[in-house]
């Protein structure tokens, strides 16, 4: 049973650079937690601190009931999978898997049994006698995972394990890793996972909970759905989701009874519930107006809260089942994501041609422009 808890973790490098700023994170036992963020967000540094490869400058780090700040990696009950696999090139796959077990003084028959069991689980029994240089990228990846599994650790640490694979293999490994986590849990083997990635698709598909990081600070920790539907700030809103959420600078302006958003020459009336939620905030004058591409349609749905605006088509990206429309609204770029069957005439549009887009303002997100915090 191993929950991982990080309390007020900070990391300051000798040159004075503060890489991690007061991170507090509770990872539950058997949870699949994804740390995601752009490069430089200190997600890998955090992982390496949990692993014991780097020291936290201050703060408390617990794995299970133990404080592990001062423990070497081998006493932390962890196993790690590296981005470039880091297999030992002079050992066979079997040797790679058995190395840690042999070091820990496990009797030979048990080492053998564990290695073969892990190899079977990962369908790589036929690879055991090979050397790492004789493996393909996907196979090497599996061996790296196998090396973690044989140790039966309390916590698995993954450091961007899929980023060296091609897109197709990455998608299938994503599924495999998720399945592996489930099957370990079903067997009753404690399998807390901390998974670092910069790829928000990996984060959304694999994570039971996701921790979004930026510049060494946690932005939001929640389940994927909440992260997507109620991002805590403009950064999370822009980072999670593909294509990105449209984030436009706007001013809140009252016209008559209605509260609306002034976007350059446009004025968009806000639905009553959004306007009401805005009321509570004193600094709700200048805002960032966020709208996911799927909430911009090409056909009118005559809903309450839907507003039609004129735009010019810049680029169409046909994905097959849907089309991404990159449009321009008075000099501001706007992306819409519409099902292929609803594209209609716009699908044949040339660059610069006019079209009408319907914004579903009830799905809008509003963030404070000063600090990006969510207003409603």
């Amino acid at each position: 049973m191993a929950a991982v808890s990080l309390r007020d973790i900070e990391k300051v490098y000798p040159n004075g650079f503060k890489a991690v700023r007061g991170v507090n994170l509770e990872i539950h036992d058997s949870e699949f937690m994804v740390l995601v963020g752009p490069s430089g967000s200190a997600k890998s540094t955090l992982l390496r601190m949990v692993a014991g490869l780097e020291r936290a400058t201050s703060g408390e780090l617990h794995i299970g009931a133990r404080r592990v700040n001062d423990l070497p990696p081998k006493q932390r009950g962890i196993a790690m999978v590296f981005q470039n696999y880091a297999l030992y090139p002079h050992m066979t796959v079997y040797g790679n898997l058995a190395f840690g077990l042999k070091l820990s003084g496990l009797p030979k028959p048990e080492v053998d049994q564990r290695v073969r069991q892990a190899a079977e689980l990962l369908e790589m029994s036929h690879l055991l006698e090979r050397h790492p240089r004789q493996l393909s990228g996907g196979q090497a990846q599996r061996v790296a995972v196998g090396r973690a599994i044989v140790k039966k650790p309390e916590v698995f640490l993954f450091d961007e394990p899929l980023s060296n694979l091609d897109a197709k293999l990455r998608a299938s490994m994503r599924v495999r890793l998720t399945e592996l986590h489930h099957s370990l849990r079903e067997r009753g083997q404690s399998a807390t996972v901390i998974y670092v990635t910069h790829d928000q698709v990996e984060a959304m598909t694999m994570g039971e909970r996701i921790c979004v990081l930026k510049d060494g600070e946690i932005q939001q920790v929640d389940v994927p759905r909440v992260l997507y539907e109620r991002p805590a700030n403009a950064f999370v809103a822009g980072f999670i989701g593909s294509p990105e959420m449209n984030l436009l600078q706007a001013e809140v302006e009252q016209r008559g009874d209605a509260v609306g958003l002034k976007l350059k020459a446009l004025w968009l009336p806000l639905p009553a519930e959004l306007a009401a939620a805005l009321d509570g905030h004193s600094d709700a004058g200048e805002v960032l107006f966020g709208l996911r591409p799927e909430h911009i349609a090409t056909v009118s749905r005559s809903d309450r809260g839907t507003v039609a605006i004129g735009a010019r088509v810049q680029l169409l990206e046909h994905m097959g089942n849907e089309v991404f429309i990159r449009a321009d609204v008075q000099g501001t770029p706007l992306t819409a994501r519409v099902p292929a069957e609803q594209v209609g005439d716009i699908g044949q549009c040339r660059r610069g041609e006019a079209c009408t887009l319907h914004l579903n303002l009830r799905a809008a997100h509003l963030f404070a422009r000063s600090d990006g915090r969510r207003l409603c």
Partner: protein
Amino acid sequence: MSAHATALTDHAQRSRALIRYTVLLAVAVLMLYPLLWLVGASFKSNSEIFSEVGFWPERFSPTAYVKGWKTSTEYTFATYFLNSFAITIPRIAVTVVSCVLVAYAFARFEFWGRKLLFGIMVATMMLPLIVLRLPQYLMFRELGWLDTYLPLIVPSAFATDTFFVFMLVQFLRGIPRDMEEAALIDGCNAWQLLLYIIVPLLKPAIISVVVFQFIWTMNDFMGPLIYLASVEKYPVSLALKMSIGATEEVEWANVIAISVVALVPSVAVFFMAQRHFIEGTASSGIKG
């Protein structure tokens, strides 16, 4: 492309290859000729050596080898070869151990004064060895090590062959740390890390160290000349010189024959290790 054109380019390519190999062969012969001459001359008589230009002897007779092997002293060259190995092999062993340890420390550990110490170490490479001879001689005399092999071996146990340390450090810096981190997580301590991970990865570099140290120590003349007094302890290099230095007329064929034999170990070691030289960096297990 038509068949005619293909044949033309084929022809052009072949003639270019012909020119290339001719040039290479010419240079190779030029470089190797002294060696060929040496082997040829080992079968010649004194007069033939100085009168004939070509390297092909009139007749092959192993007498020079037999006579040369016996030497004018009471010992045969077997003794001198054994002496050479008695210096070379322990020296290689202590060199490898000490240089790997020091290089590991420089390449992988943060310690106070590391950069300064590394700078000093590299600077000692620039020192001409000759300026160290006198103080070293005095020191070893105080220790009572004159006329023993210790002055030839012991200094290497302290990683004084800085060139090797430098080479190993550079090689180590080129090895990604991930494997070591993986090994740390697998439960290695610093010594196990060195033994199980670093040394196997360093193998090509270590083989280079062994080969260079072997050749340099076998060929070393100055060291043994200064520290060794008794003939029974002479290594091959000194014994060769001794066979020339005698007062009576020199039997050049004997000297040359033994020179040829003296070359054999170095050449053999080099060719044995050649494969590993080349294998070197290609076997790294890291991708991406």
